[in-house]
């Protein structure tokens, strides 16, 4: 059997039988009913909602940062004493040289 010829013959058969373009009864009415039934998506409304949500999240983060900075339980005091100790340790040799010379 010549497979190339068979393939050509079958493709010709497909070309000879174009599919029907019949549309089912009242198809457009069904589509229109479906389109009318779905809620209309308003882009401005969507953006408005998203921005309000983002604004809420930003305010919450700002408040948390404010609380963290100003309340006494933050570690600022111990950090400053640590930095002073570090500075003294690093400059100890220089202090010694002042006394020596």
């Amino acid at each position, binding site marked *: *059997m*010549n*497979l190339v*010829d*068979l*393939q050509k*013959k*079958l*493709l*010709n*058969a*497909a*070309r*000879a*039988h*174009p*599919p*029907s*373009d*019949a*549309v*089912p009864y009242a*198809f*457009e*009415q*069904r*589509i*229109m009913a*479906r*389109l*009318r039934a779905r809620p209309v998506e308003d882009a401005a409304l969507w953006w408005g909602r998203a921005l309000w949500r983002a604004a809420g999240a930003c305010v919450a983060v700002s408040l948390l940062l404010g609380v963290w900075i100003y309340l006494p339980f933050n570690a600022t005091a111990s950090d400053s004493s640590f930095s002073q100790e570090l500075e003294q340790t690093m400059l100890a040799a220089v202090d010694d040289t002042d006394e020596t010379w």
Partner: protein
Amino acid sequence: MESLDADLIGAVLNGDTASFEPLITKYSPRVFATARRYARRESEVEDIAQEVWTKAFQKLASFRGEAPFEHWLMRLAVRTCYDFLRAHQRNRETAFTELTGPETDWLDRFVAQPDDASEKAEAARALVGRLLEQLSPAARLVITLLEIEERSVKEISQLTGWSVPLVKVRAFRARAEMRKCVAKMAPEKYM
């Protein structure tokens, strides 16, 4: 773009949903003919057409009017059909078992005297349907557009959104895949 289509599209975009109905009435035959190339069951064909029109309505604002509405819609239809094929590729038949009597007769006739096997026979149409169902989604889409609808590579590129080199590569692979499927379909007694 025809001015009537442009008017209707403009009206839909301005909120007059009812103006979409004449577009559905006018172009549904093309959408259904396209869908029937890829889906066998009528319920699947209708699902595809419904999906195409829903997408068309949702994306209508992205239609710029540079090309005819029909071209834009056909791009949407072809891509929806491709999505359908990919979603249903596991349902493909795995073998050419149980050819019907008329199909076997047609093959017998083709082997005995190729010219006697009519391309217009219903059995030939059924056989090519089986053959296309064996192909991968991309191969089926390319073979349908290139070999059956006889479209150019450039047209296929526009319809599918694939680049021209990708269409050529997929066409090459699709032809090879089809040759394998034809060989599988031809029963051993003919080889």
